[in-house]
């Protein structure tokens, strides 16, 4: 992927974000890319809303699937653990508890054993 050119940035600012030429040139690159991030988030929100409507429509139609669709089926980004979504919660099993204990030992060292034991 090639780095964006001035023309790419300007066209994006004008068409997608709706900035005037003067507004575009008065922003710092950091502020402009922050706007780009927020614009992407707003796009994702719109897509989520449309996906939710489609899920409801499909799940309540005459020919509904035997397994009801979930939002993540139509919008992979909404799947837990996908980039941009909250991390999936992990069950606290015996094995996971052991992993946590091992990590703690690595960080703080093994507990001192009392002398003579």
């Amino acid at each position: 992927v090639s780095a964006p050119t001035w023309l790419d940035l300007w066209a994006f600012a004008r068409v997608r974000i709706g900035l005037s030429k003067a507004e575009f040139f008065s922003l710092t690159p950091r502020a402009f890319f922050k706007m780009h991030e927020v614009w992407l988030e707003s796009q994702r929100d719109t897509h989520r809303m449309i996906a939710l409507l489609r899920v409801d429509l499909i799940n309540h139609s005459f020919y509904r699937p035997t397994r009801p669709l979930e939002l993540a089926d139509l919008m992979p980004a909404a799947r837990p653990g996908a980039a941009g979504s909250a991390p999936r919660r992990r069950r606290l099993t015996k094995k996971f508890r052991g992993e946590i204990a091992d990590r703690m030992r690595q960080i703080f060292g093994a507990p001192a054993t009392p002398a003579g034991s």
Partner: protein
Amino acid sequence: MSRRKIAGTIADATLPKTPVEIDGKIYNLCFTLGALSEAETSINAELAREGRDDYVNLLYALPAGNLASTRIIFAAAVRAFHPELTFEQARDLPALEDLYTIAVKVREAWNRARVKDKDEDDANPTEPAAAVA
């Protein structure tokens, strides 16, 4: 009711300011896209005049610091907060003995304006006390 203009002025908190002192006067540097574009066009025109094939892209990196490029980049960066200066006046402002300090400040200002890395936080740019002068 009179409307106060904040955007693009010294009170604009979204624009990072990097103060530099020249002849006892404080000038604030800021790299807006306009400043970067102006500096890049001037430097690339200089390079073309010299018959060189290379060109700079200030969105991604500053050029190797030499006298000519430092003056040009300073002139573009200073005019964001000092529009009363023409490009030529701003370019002639730094004396030879100030150029090293100015080159350091230019790099600082550019770093404050560039797109942040993934591990950098979104904190507001630090505003040195001298920036309000």
